[in-house]
């Protein structure tokens, strides 16, 4: 799946270090599930190593590390981890770590399976591209946090969590919209078009439409409670499938772009 070539890593020291630098925090995030202060110390250590891994990549690339799959997934996981820290400080959701940290750790493990290339294509060498990926993966991260809160709501039935899920999903939709707008500008400047008829684009549209459906349903009180929470979680599933599934399950054609 997705250009995985672990064995080649061993030949490339920088890539091997990069892989370790995401697998170590992944393990520490899992240890962060331990009860009490100890768990939180593990989490903070994991977060520190995670931030270090992103700094390492930035130095290696000489650019913002947002152009490769490894970096994108790692960045998404970082935003989720920081969101957890923020929510924890506010004591907003009980036992959030049980839902969120395994997702963060899994994302990092998946990031570690992707080979890094360390070259930024000339087409990506523009602030529009970096803004696009920044908003895009921030959006997915917020959606993931919202989905985790939604899952806890479905299990616990505490209505405050459902409202919180709505808030995170709203910000996710905003970030996704921003990402699509600046992404359109970037792609137009690169190739003279802001839309492509590909499976990937159609799935991104599908995710955006699902989010739009959720936003309308929730804003107008047409849908609340468990059905709304399930729809919010479905949006995250669609987002994950768009990123990981299209190309793996739905064959993506080799594109000239």
């Amino acid at each position, binding site marked *: 799946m997705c250009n995985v070539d672990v064995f080649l890593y061993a030949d490339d020291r920088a890539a091997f270090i990069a892989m370790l630098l995401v697998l170590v925090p992944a393990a520490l995030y899992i240890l962060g599930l331990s009860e009490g202060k100890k768990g939180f110390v593990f989490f903070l250590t994991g977060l520190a190593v995670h931030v270090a891994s992103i700094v390492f990549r930035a130095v290696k690339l000489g650019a913002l590390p947002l152009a490769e799959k490894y970096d994108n997934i790692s960045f998404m996981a970082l935003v989720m981890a920081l969101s957890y820290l923020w929510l924890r400080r506010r004591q907003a959701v009980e036992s959030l770590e049980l839902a969120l940290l395994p997702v963060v750790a899994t994302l990092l493990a998946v990031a570690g399976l992707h080979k890094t290339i360390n070259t930024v294509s000339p*087409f990506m060498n523009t602030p529009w591209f970096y803004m696009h990926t920044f908003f895009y993966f921030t959006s997915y991260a917020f959606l993931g946090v919202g989905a985790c809160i939604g899952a806890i709501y479905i299990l616990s039935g505490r209505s405050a969590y459902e409202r919180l899920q709505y808030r995170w999903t709203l910000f996710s939709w905003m970030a996704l919209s921003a990402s699509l707008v600046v992404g359109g500008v970037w792609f137009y400047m690169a190739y003279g078009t802001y839309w492509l008829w*590909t499976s990937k684009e159609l799935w991104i549209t599908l995710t955006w439409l699902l989010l739009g*459906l959720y936003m309308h349903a929730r804003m107008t009180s047409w849908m609340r409670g468990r059905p709304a929470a399930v729809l919010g979680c479905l949006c995250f599933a669609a987002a994950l499938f768009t990123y990981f599934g299209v190309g793996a399950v739905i064959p993506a054609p080799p594109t000239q772009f």
Partner: protein
Amino acid sequence: MRAVYRFLISLNTLFVVFTICAVLALVGSLTLPANLAFFSGIDDTPLFKWLSDAGNLKATWWIFVFIVVLALLATSMALCIVEDLRTGVSRKNILQKLSPQLIHLGTLFVLLGYLLTSAYGLRADVLIGKGETGAIGTNASLHLVDLNARTDENGYFTDWKAVLRFVKDGVESDTMVLRPVHPVRVGGYELFFKSIDMGDEQAALIRVCRDPGAGWALLGGALLLLGSLGLAYIRLRA
């Protein structure tokens, strides 16, 4: 008439339309890779021209349905804007009222932009060898004066540039430099550096466009962002 109006501004209609759009996107994402060769030129030609040339309704029906459903969605959004602003906008609730409608208006402009591009746009790729000339249209051409590329230690391209002259009715323009993600506008065309071949026969693949919808789409995107920011502000204050 009133029944049609009520149908178009109804939330139920909106949910049905959203769901149909999502299903069509799903159908399209499966149809495209299943008919790879057939769809290979869809992004190189404005949509309506491609559709009229392509035929094969069996593979393209979902795009036609998409267009019809999007037209319905656009009508519904336009009426919702009117309906919402008609009912009680005050200084107190202006942000609450305007933000979602700015998002709707932005989406409408993006759709309008794509409609104009699909109907009246021009898109063509020209492959030009170094020192050679490639025709664009009937009386214009591009002359590739020079071509340079930079690579990193692994041989990946890190940057490239083409030095070009635009020729119209036999008159050559001054030289201009075309680089990736830095389009150049000349003679009513926009030029994009799409790809490069630095092999034995050095050549540049240049996309030539006329896009009457791009400005509308950009305006739509800006309104969408503005509306989103308004919503974010309301939410953060709540």
